[in-house]
Each structure stands twice: as structure tokens, then as C-alpha cells.
């Protein structure tokens, strides 16, 4: 009787050990950012930032202020109002498509909101641009691309804002014009 119980119990414990080993979170899960999610037009509040993304679109050529951006790929154009929640902080915009990270461009300098600095209670309104591959809408994960707005640097265990974007549903325009970043709410 004891053997009849001991063998299944031993096998069960070994199976349990495998389960524990495989279900233990790795560094990627343990150190993941804390994402606050929302949709277009919603005010999304993280620990550091308050952001409202009004519109996103794909364009082949863009003018922001006096800067004209061309690309061999395609621009993801993001129109947003971003404010610091607690204290002065930088703004960092990036997009993940199927786990691949695409950073906001720094080619437009201070004309775009990305890499700008915001103070608490002083929102900035403007655009951010992320350069994506020309065939991005055909890539796996294009329907669930993630737009992340954070403070840059090491974002492990940090609070970030995320919006899921279906890139395949976006209209592709040949060109778009936007003003440079300005103070205040749009």
C-alpha cells in the first residue's frame, strides 16, 4: 500500500518541481515596467507623466515646424499632450512591434515632444515621430504594436504609459504638417 502511494506521490512531486521551475518568473518579468494603459483621447496618468495621445498615423514625409523629415521607411506620427505629474522629467517615446523596439527620432531636435523636458503643471502639446520599416504593417505584431511613453533611461520596474495600436488599421498618407512643440493643452 505504501509503495502504491509513494510512487505516484514521488512522481507528482517531481512534476510539481518542474511546474515551479518553469513558472518562476525570469528577469524580464521580475524587472518589467509597470504599464498604465489607455486609448486614444484618454488622459493616462503614470507615476511620472500625464499624457493624452490624440491621434496616430503613418506618413511617408512629415514637416514639423521648419524641419522636413524624409525616410526610407515610414513615420509613425503621434500627436499628444504631455505633462509631468510630480517633478521635472524628460519625455521618451518608443514603439514596440513584435518585441522589437523603435525609438522616437531625435532628427527633428526640439520641434518634437520626444526627448523634451516637462515640468509639473506645464503641459506641452506637439508631435513625436518614430521611424518604422516601410513594410511595418505586414510584420507580425503590427496589429498589437505598443506605443510607450516614459521618462527614458532605465525603465525597469518604472512606471510607463502604454497604448496598443493596430498599425494595419491606420491610413497611410503621403505627407503631413505639424507645428513645433508648444506650451499648453491642445
Amino acid at each position, binding site marked *: 500500500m505504501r509503495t502504491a502511494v509513494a510512487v505516484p506521490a514521488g512522481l507528482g512531486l517531481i512534476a510539481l518541481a518542474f511546474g515551479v521551475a518553469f513558472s518562476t518568473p525570469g528577469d524580464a518579468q521580475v524587472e518589467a515596467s509597470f504599464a498604465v494603459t489607455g486609448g486614444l483621447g484618454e488622459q493616462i496618468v503614470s507615476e511620472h507623466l500625464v499624457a493624452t495621445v490624440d491621434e496616430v498615423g503613418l506618413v511617408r514625409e512629415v514637416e514639423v515646424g521648419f524641419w522636413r523629415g524624409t525616410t526610407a521607411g515610414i513615420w509613425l506620427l503621434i500627436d499628444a499632450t504631455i505633462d509631468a505629474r*510630480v*517633478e*521635472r522629467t524628460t519625455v521618451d517615446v518608443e514603439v514596440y512591434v513584435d518585441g522589437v523596439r523603435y525609438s522616437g527620432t531625435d532628427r527633428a531636435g526640439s520641434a518634437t515632444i520626444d526627448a523634451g523636458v516637462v*515640468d*509639473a*503643471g*506645464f503641459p506641452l502639446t506637439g508631435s513625436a515621430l518614430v521611424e518604422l520599416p516601410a513594410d511595418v504593417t505586414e510584420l507580425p505584431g503590427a496589429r498589437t504594436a505598443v506605443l510607450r511613453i516614459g521618462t527614458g533611461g532605465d525603465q525597469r520596474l518604472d512606471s510607463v504609459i502604454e497604448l496598443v495600436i493596430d498599425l494595419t488599421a491606420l491610413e497611410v498618407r503621403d505627407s503631413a504638417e505639424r507645428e513645433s512643440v508648444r*506650451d*499648453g493643452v491642445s
Partner: protein
Amino acid sequence: MTWLRRNRWFLVALVVLIPGAFVVSLIPRWFPYQGAQPQPDAVALGETATYSGAEITLTGLEVLDGGPLNAPANADVVVATIAFDVVDPRDGAYCEITVVSDEAGYERRWESETVSDSDYEIPDRFAQTCTFAERGAYDLQLTFLVPHGQVEDPAVQISSSAGLPRVLRLS
């Protein structure tokens, strides 16, 4: 004898050990993290506090309407005047001064202006950089831009690398 009565001491042990295990799990990171957080020490306007080797007194704190001062849109100007008397110099200690307000329902902070963005001019007799490195007394004046109408009762926070985690909160 009921099951509860038979196992009462094991149950008592569980009641003690489970919360105990929770507290022990907090020892490596949570308690050191909490201990390293800034510990504000409230000091009233006009009172003197000793901090980082200096006698520090907030002698003036005003919130000025940014409109007449041609401040940037949607900004008021906070002017803080602070008397420092460094009696025990701390070479290499950095000094950071911010304006703090919890009027939004949570605490917000603003850094001082390095160059005035309004028509308010700091008189020449005031220093505009704080230091704990040299013995002697000096008066400091700083300006801060805060959102218009949102900050009416601010405090000035002074922190020094030689004084942390204690910080002064003057108002």
C-alpha cells in the same frame, strides 16, 4: 477532543509565523528603501534650523502673479529668500533647493530658475547658488515658476548630500 483543540498550538504558531515571515521578507529591500527616503523636517518662516553644518532661516516666501511680471503663459513666480550661516563647512556637499506643494492632492516639486524667465530680477545683494563648503553667512534668493493659480501655500525644501535622508521643509 475537537480538531481545533488538538491543533491549537500549531494554529497559534501559524498566526505568529506567517506575519513574521512577511516582515522578514521586507528586511533586505523594503526597510532600507524606506530608510533612504527623504525625511522632511518642518521649519516655520523666520525660525532657524541647523542642517548640514549651517544655520538656515527662511526669511521670505512669496507667490507672485506671473501676468504682470510677463512670466511664461500659465506661470506664477515663487520668490524664496533664505539666510545661510555656514558654521561647520561640508566640502563637496551638494545643495538642492526646490519648491514643494501638495495642493494638487499629492506632492509636486519645481526646480529653481537658472535664468529668470520673467521681469522679476533678483537684487544683486543676494547669492543665487547655495553652498555648504565655505564658512560664513550669506543671503540667497531664488525664483521658481509654478502653474498659475495652483500653488498658493508652497514650502521650500533644502537637501544636502551631507544631511540626507533628513531634508528641511521651510514654509
